[in-house]
């Protein structure tokens, strides 16, 4: 099986302390892979390493066989931010945001070509947001807000999507429709890595799981690795208790 994401001996340190400690893991192409672990387990740092946004002490990351740099140049990898890290009051429309997926292929003026417009139309259609293209992004529902950023990734031509806590604060119906979208994209060969600290539903839609606690506790097919034993080792305590108490984070 070919891998979309290949991580070898990856170590990342903040102020001398290892946040990721010799991580070795790969995600097969076309997987919907859950990345689970407590807050502070290194999920965000792993994302940042895949995005070249953090200095790596040692190890290497390969995306569809390319270095991260080359992968980014070719638009292979895209990041869908957490809802609360986006400023929803920004004066940008749905179309503006999706067009930002094309910016990497434009010159410094960022003037969209006809081809760019076409790809944005296509991306909007794929996430069913074509009727909302002129809306200011803050005037969308929770699920639509996620879809805008998925559309941006598609307009970019990304085949690896990194979703950061996509289901935080989202109701069950929205979650189901997003999962449906991810499964549609999976059929088109897109690999998705989903970071989540809430374990309630992740096992039901991810075909692969990585359990992370600075190092990889276990990784593989969900049915093989998503066991009580592994979860307990990842979460340091009785499953569900510590993680459910916000003030302990």
């Amino acid at each position: 099986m070919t891998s979309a994401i290949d991580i070898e001996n990856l170590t990342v340190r903040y102020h001398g302390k290892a946040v990721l400690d010799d991580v070795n893991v790969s995600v097969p192409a076309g997987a919907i892979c859950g990345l689970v672990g407590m807050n502070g387990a290194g999920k965000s740092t792993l994302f940042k390493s895949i995005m070249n946004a953090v200095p790596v002490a040692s190890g290497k990351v390969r995306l569809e066989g390319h270095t991260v740099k080359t992968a980014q140049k070719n638009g292979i990898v895209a990041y869908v931010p957490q809802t609360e890290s986006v400023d929803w009051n920004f004066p940008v429309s749905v179309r503006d945001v999706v067009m930002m997926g094309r910016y990497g292929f434009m010159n410094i003026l960022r003037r969209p070509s006809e081809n760019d417009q076409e790809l944005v139309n296509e991306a909007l259609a794929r996430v069913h947001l074509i009727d909302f293209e002129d809306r200011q992004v803050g005037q969308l529902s929770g699920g639509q807000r996620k879809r805008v950023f998925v559309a941006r990734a598609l307009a970019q031509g990304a085949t690896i999507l990194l979703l950061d806590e996509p289901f935080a604060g989202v109701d069950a119906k929205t979650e189901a429709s997003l999962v449906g979208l991810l499964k549609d994209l999976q059929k088109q060969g897109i690999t998705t890595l989903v970071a989540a600290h809430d374990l309630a539903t992740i096992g039901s839609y991810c075909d692969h799981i990585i359990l992370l606690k600075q190092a990889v506790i276990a990784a593989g097919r969900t049915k093989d690795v998503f066991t009580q034993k592994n979860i307990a080792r990842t979460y340091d305590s009785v499953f569900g208790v510590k993680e459910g108490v916000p003030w302990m984070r």
Partner: protein
Amino acid sequence: MDAIISPLQYDFMLKAIVVSSLVGVVCALLSCFLVLKRWSLMGDAVSHSVLPGVVLAYVAGLPYSIGAFIFGLGGVLGIGYIKQRVRLKDDAVIGIVYTTLFALGLVLVSKVPSNIDLMHILFGYVLGISDGDAWQVGLIAVAVTGLLITLRRSLLLYSFDQAHASAIRLNVNFYHYLLLALLALTVVASVQTVGIVLVVAMLITPGAIAHLLTDRFDRMLLIAASVSVFACIAGAYASYYFDVSTGGAMVLVLGIIFLLTFLFAPKYGVLKFKSH
């Protein structure tokens, strides 16, 4: 009509209107980015930091704009440097650095013999601007305006989503420092029109007003610039007819427009007339 045209026969009035409108445009465009990027305090920081630069440039016999630019940019770079290395929050570091530089400026003004009028630097003196300074200010304003308009989409992406910007290999550091440098240049250009205290308003209010009036970024730039130019011209006339502080009048007009927008903006004002 005559009330509008007759002051224009005076050279100083015409010059004041042209120069302050140019400065008004550049401040307004920049204010859109600052407001969206939550950098409003940065305007405060740069403008107060330029004071020692103005005095030292005088001592060294250089144009004031060079000293002001060095200290304005130096101030924000210093803030960035300290912020990364201590556990203090942004606002504390910003507050310490710019007040210290401002204090250094005050001490220098009081000790260095010069013909610098502190009041003019603090609150502007556009009616008395020299031809040389007017040209300098005009050139800076036009250059910064050109850059902001040309690079607006890249700057907007940088302001909106840095993670995506760096993921598509947009040089995030370049845009960060570019925006700071443009801010420093803009403050330099504003010293003589509204002064370093009131320029803070010019760097926040037009963008804030426009943000309450539109959901489109290009339109936001246009509204901010128009409002700002209107305020600058109104301020110049007010100063001519009522003999009041020019910079003060300009900022006051902006403040009044903000208040009206805050109350009556169709979608985002507190008294919503249009239901959505």
